């Protein structure tokens, strides 16, 4: 041992470490230490965390199953959502309000004659239509409304928030005052008001166009989402941009002469994409809630087209005799919203634990 390694005798109260109690690392331990972790990106890390969360995985599976059902069920089930059931080309008026998995008299005769008839999984409604396919189409409408509305919110909020946050100064002040005012409007009431008003206004404008089938109420719902619901997204984006704007790499990009649009697109937005992604996912159940609420009070999709809300509303007639007509769309709405909520929570925990309230 060298002279230097000799350590003076430890005093009773001294905090000095006793080197003799340490031993050199073995080769194996050194190996373990130098081993590198496989390179991983932010996205991969987040996904790994997400797939460790059983609730999030479960809801992802539920949503996937639902999407598969609503895409493929109309191809397999031989009934239309607005057609009366027909047996051998004759309208079957006996197939009214049947309980699940039952056949009408005419159909039973046809089966006795050796015909194959697809079962009515959820029964039929008061107008002799297959209820399963109506619920499937209802879920289709509700899900696509949720997705589209969230996309509209995302687009407007992203552009508005980026401009406001990046430009700053007086522009920011004015833009944020507008957001404040829209934010303080009671949104659901305004949705109702605008749906009532836009209905007669739009009716003539969209007559005989491809939009007619969607109905004025759906279009006004999208307009309202475009007008009112983007504000919280705009606030979020602005906040993110304000904090990222101060980073050195933005300064460097500016010094190199990059244009503001390029800086926002290439340097700022990619750094807040996870937060934006998560709040878009959380917006979807919100939009589905609003759509089903409007359909329930009679401001939803146009008549033959079903949505989960309007099916639940229609089921209130004869609730005592045919409770299953309420149960199916109700369970579908709850499952969709629950799955999106849990998935959103999972995404938030995986990608941005700071967001957790």
């Amino acid at each position, binding site marked *: 041992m060298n002279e230097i390694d000799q350590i003076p005798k430890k005093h009773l109260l001294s905090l000095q470490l006793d080197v003799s109690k340490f031993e050199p690392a073995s080769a194996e331990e050194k190996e373990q230490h130098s081993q590198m972790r496989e390179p991983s990106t932010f996205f991969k890390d987040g996904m790994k965390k997400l797939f460790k969360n059983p609730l999030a995985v479960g809801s992802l599976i539920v949503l996937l199953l639902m999407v598969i059902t609503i895409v493929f069920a109309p191809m397999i089930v031989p009934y239309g959502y607005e057609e009366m059931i027909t047996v051998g080309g004759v309208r079957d008026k006996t197939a009214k309000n049947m309980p699940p998995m039952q056949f009408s008299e005419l159909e039973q005769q046809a089966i006795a004659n050796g015909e194959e008839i697809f079962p009515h999984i959820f029964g039929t409604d008061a107008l002799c239509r297959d209820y399963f396919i109506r619920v499937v189409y209802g879920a289709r409408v509700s899900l696509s409304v949720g997705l589209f509305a969230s996309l509209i919110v995302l687009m407007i909020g992203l552009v508005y928030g980026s401009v406001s946050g990046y430009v700053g100064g007086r522009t920011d002040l004015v833009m944020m005052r507008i957001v*404040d*005012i829209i934010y*303080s*409007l*009671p949104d*659901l*009431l*305004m949705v*109702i*008001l*605008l749906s*009532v*008003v836009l209905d*007669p*206004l739009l009716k003539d404008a969209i007559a005989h166009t491809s939009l007619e089938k969607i109905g004025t109420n759906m279009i006004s719902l999208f307009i309202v989402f475009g007008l009112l619901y983007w504000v919280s997204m705009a606030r979020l984006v602005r906040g993110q941009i304000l904090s990222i704007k101060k980073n050195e790499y933005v300064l460097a990009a500016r010094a190199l002469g990059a244009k503001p649009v390029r800086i926002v697109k290439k340097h700022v937005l990619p750094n807040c994409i996870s937060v934006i992604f998560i709040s878009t996912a959380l917006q979807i*159940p919100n939009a589905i*809630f609003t759509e*089903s*609420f409007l359909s*329930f*009070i*009679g*401001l939803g999709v146009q008549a033959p087209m079903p949505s989960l*809300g309007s099916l*639940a*509303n229609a*089921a*209130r007639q004869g*609730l*005592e005799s045919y*409770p299953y007509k*309420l149960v199916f769309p*109700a369970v579908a*709405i*709850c499952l969709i*919203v*629950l799955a999106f*909520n*849990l998935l959103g929570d999972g995404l938030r925990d995986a990608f941005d634990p700071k967001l*957790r*309230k």
Partner: protein
Amino acid sequence: MWKYILKRLGLAVVTVFIIITLTFFSMNAIPGGPFEKEKAPDPAVRAVLEERFHLNKPVGVQFLYYIADLFQGDFGISLKTGRDIMQTLTESFAVSARLGGVAALSALVVGLVLGSIAALRRNGVFDRVIIFFTTLFVSVPSFVLATILLLTFCLKLNWFQVWSATGQQNYFLPILALALYPMSYITRLTKSSMLDVLGQDYIRTARSKGVAESKVIYKHALRNALIPVITYMGPMVAYILTGSLVVETVFTIGGLGSKFVTGITNRDYPMIMATTIFLAVLMVIATLISDLIYKLVDPKISFD
């Protein structure tokens, strides 16, 4: 503080004004007037009527008249029933206010208690049960909940009579349908903010000084955990007011909500206008009050 109150009041006044303007002009944009029916009145009668209701004036002047009438509490008359809307509003709001008030209060009390218990017995059986049910209930739309409650407890189990204006008036189920969502939300909110507060240094200090556990929880933890809950008061009032639209319709209670929905189905425009403005002003006031209380209890928060 005063500056903040004034600023907040100013925003509320602007919001109310915008709501009234938006309602008035959008309703005006609907094509068709009161005299475009099959039986058009005599031109002389029509002129008198137009003069009386200021319909011969430009829209801007009509708007001013409308605002002046609003300030005198005159919402016009319903197209469908011909009754004075103000009277209908006050009568039906008395019913809705009782329903909504009890729902809000029970949501608040039960939510706070359950949330605190869940936070204090973290990861216990009780906590898990509470979190399971609250997660479930925030995913159930109010109309689904109301119809399912009606179906199970009124129609199938016969525990409660179906609500009727003259006979049985049991408020339990409608209140439950209105309160479950905000209750679950408050429970989750209280739990997370309680956990946040319980991890703070001053709680440890209080405990290490030997302060009784109940005092630590009531005096130190709960009071600070309440602050996020206060901010939810405004949204909760808005939720209960709009939730009452469907809950009252489902349970056929003649409150403000069901009057609004009937107005929408009948396209009774003056009624829709009046109810929208009335409910919107209530919501703006609720948000204003909850913001001011928030500022009052926590002076640390700055809003600029």
